[in-house]
């Protein structure tokens, strides 16, 4: 009798274990066997409980890490947005054209000249030439580390379009290393006025200014003389 009872009881407990395992498998990680009876089966029950505990921990850990990764991803995406924003800001900032003297514009170029930037630079320069009526523009490329054929091509195009608007361009700030590189590349920049330093370019621009002023003065004088006569 007690033997049969015992077997029934064990069967119930095994059923319970099965139920618990099934609910854990279904995702209820809080299910435990929690048996109070001490016998041969209790060891197995305790081991299963422990395993479920471990599994729960692992799952929680994984969820936590997943969340961290997702957070980081969001952060990176935000940073990328900022970078793009700054890139476009820089594009605007990096091509300032300013009038430094009567009739003289200056455009300091710093960093890398890619096609997009050159486009912005050229537009700014041409607009400013029309707006101010200046006839001399200095492009200072001291801050450009590498001049390859594409950059040289862009510079040539900028200078040519400025000339079409009646302005003379002077390129200054060509370092000895870049000068040699340009020669080796075989690029012909002889159609452009170039000066070693910005200072030289300024001095040249002033001289040009003086000359044109003299011409203006002379024509004024001749007008005056004519009137006197």
């Amino acid at each position, binding site marked *: 009798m007690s033997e049969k009872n015992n077997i029934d009881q064990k069967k119930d407990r095994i059923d319970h274990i099965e139920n618990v395992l099934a609910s854990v498998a279904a995702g209820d990680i809080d299910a435990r066997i929690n048996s109070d009876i001490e016998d041969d089966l209790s060891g197995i029950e305790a081991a299963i409980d422990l395993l479920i505990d471990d599994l729960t921990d692992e799952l929680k850990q994984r969820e936590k890490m997943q969340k961290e990764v997702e957070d980081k991803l969001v952060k990176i995406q935000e940073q990328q947005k900022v970078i793009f924003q700054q890139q476009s800001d820089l594009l605007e900032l990096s091509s300032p054209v300013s009038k430094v003297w009567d009739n003289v514009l200056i455009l300091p170029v710093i960093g890398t000249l890619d096609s997009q930037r050159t486009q912005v630079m050229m537009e700014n320069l041409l607009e400013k030439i029309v707006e101010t009526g200046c006839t001399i523009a200095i492009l200072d490329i001291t801050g450009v580390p*590498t001049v390859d*054929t594409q950059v040289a091509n862009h510079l040539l195009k900028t200078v040519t379009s400025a000339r079409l608007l009646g302005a003379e361009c002077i390129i200054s700030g060509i370092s000895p*290393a870049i000068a040699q590189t340009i020669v080796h590349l075989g690029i012909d920049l002889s159609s452009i006025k170039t000066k070693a330093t910005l200072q030289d370019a300024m001095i040249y621009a002033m001289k040009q200014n003086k000359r044109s002023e003299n011409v203006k003065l002379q024509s004024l004088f001749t007008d005056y003389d004519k009137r006197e006569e």
Partner: protein
Amino acid sequence: MLQLTSDNNWKKLGEHHVNSEHDIVSVRQLIRYYAKEMNMGIIDQTRITTAVSELLRNMYNYGGGGEVHVETGLVDEKQTLIVTCIDEGPGIEDLELAMSDGYTSGKGMGYGLPGAKRLVDRFEIKSERNKGTTVRIMKWK
């Protein structure tokens, strides 16, 4: 078919992909850094950087982007910086024409390849129609 010089004793410095104009700039800056590390003078740094810039532009404009391998090692018993540009683009139809001054198949000035050749100590090019182009340039220290 022309074979590119190679040596198993060369030390690999890096492998980079070029898929945008921005990549051109960053790889170029790395080349300048490697050249500096090898104690090249400022003029040689500028030369190799400019040559690499030409090749990367070609790769980006005509080859649809590609890979750059940077190595250092002995070539003719001289410490050398070796840069290999590999693309899987349409290839160059007439190499002799492409290597001549003033010829361009696109909108460039036509000084890219011949100019790059003049800027480095050794220049090797291998191109197959519809398979791609590989250019290896070397600059002694």
